[in-house]
């Protein structure tokens, strides 16, 4: 079966990868954009006089949310049209991994970016005088929220363009698909979690305009911790891509590397969302109870640290699968 012309395998992997990248990548951004539009509609119905401002804010928020789908589109178009200079079976695996990475990786950031955009529209309706500050808060929050999708795009581009020419096909093929799974899946949690924190900060700024500095600080600290799950995923992807493996045609050698990606990828989803929930709770109450922001941020960090532990277990299992067994 492996005896087909190599171009057949390259094209098959690239086309399937492009489908996965764009198909899964479209889900998150669409949900996020829909949420923003829903919030903008609610806000407009409450205060029709500022419908122009709300419409403009909705479009700005949606444009940022759209970017995750555009990342997916770029990767899908690259996969479809790119000429691979040195086609090998290993490159075919790398192209499939690139598609998987971008498809899953765009999901969380797309849904997440919609939340600050929606909450900013509701906030503008509540405090039209705060439009500028709410837009700034939304832009900062959404930008941080995009980073997991950008990590996924970086790994996808590396998988597409790096020449893995001299590595043995077995088991490196599994390492490359595992690298795609690790960053792609882990980005879901961090993207969504970052969005929860950013949404709460837009809501909080609208409620207590004088709290804007503290709220943004709490949001950024919370989002930074929520990002760590996707950074673990990125780390495992880098190790999987750049470690050199001794040639081994056994099934177990390949499956260990694939499983390392599965473990870290899925393992990063929960802690990313959990850290985001903790940050959402803290940011929301920092805005309502400004004088106790220190206590709240401390509790958030302690809670996030505990929530993070399962991502660390997943990373340990991945590292054992790569280096020990």
């Amino acid at each position, binding site marked *: 079966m492996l005896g087909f012309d190599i171009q057949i395998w390259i094209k098959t992997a690239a086309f399937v990868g492009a489908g996965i990248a764009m198909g899964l990548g479209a889900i998150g951004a669409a949900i996020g954009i829909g949420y923003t539009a829903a919030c903008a509609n609610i806000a407009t119905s409450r205060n029709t006089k500022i419908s122009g401002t709300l419409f403009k804010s909705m479009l700005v928020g949606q444009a940022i949310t759209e970017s995750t789908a555009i990342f997916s589109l770029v990767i899908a178009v690259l996969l479809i049209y790119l000429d691979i200079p040195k086609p090998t079976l290993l490159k075919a695996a790398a192209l499939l991994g690139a598609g998987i990475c971008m498809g899953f990786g765009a999901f969380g950031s797309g849904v997440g970016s919609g939340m600050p955009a929606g909450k900013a529209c509701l906030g503008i309706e509540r405090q039209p005088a705060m439009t500028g500050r709410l837009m700034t808060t939304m832009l900062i929050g959404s930008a941080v929220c995009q980073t997991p999708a950008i990590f996924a795009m970086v790994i996808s581009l590396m998988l597409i363009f790096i020449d893995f020419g001299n590595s043995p096909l077995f088991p490196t093929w599994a390492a490359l698909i595992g690298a795609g799974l690790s960053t792609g899946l882990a980005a879901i949690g961090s993207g969504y979690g970052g969005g929860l924190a950013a949404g709460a900060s837009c809501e909080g700024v609208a409620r207590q305009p004088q709290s804007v500095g503290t709220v943004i600080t709490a949001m950024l600290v919370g989002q930074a911790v929520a990002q760590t799950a996707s950074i673990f995923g990125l780390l495992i992807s880098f190790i999987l891509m750049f470690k050199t493996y001794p040639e081994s045609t056994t099934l177990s050698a390949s*499956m260990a590397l694939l499983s390392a990606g599965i473990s870290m990828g*899925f393992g990063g989803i929960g802690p990313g969302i959990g850290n985001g929930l903790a940050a959402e709770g803290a940011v929301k109450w920092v805005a309502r109870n400004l004088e106790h922001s220190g206590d709240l941020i401390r509790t958030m960090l302690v809670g996030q640290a505990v929530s993070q532990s399962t991502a660390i277990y997943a990373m340990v299992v991945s590292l054992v699968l790569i280096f020990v067994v």
Partner: protein
Amino acid sequence: MAIEGADIVKAAAFIGAGIAMGLGAIGPGVGEGITAAKACEAIGKNPREAGLLTRTMLVGQAVAESTGIYSLVIALLLLFVV
């Protein structure tokens, strides 16, 4: 690709370990996040009881963590013992 029976079993154990730890980590992560969010809410409403609330949060999270530790144990068993 030379595939033997023992090799398939070992490969299955590796994949099983990855799935056990990967999926098993989702629940505790989300659950502990909800606990932390609610603890922040409670401290926001009643800041004087911050110490008691943080303690309760940590105990609750420790219990939620147990399923993550089960997953870790199963993953390590699959990797090293079976």
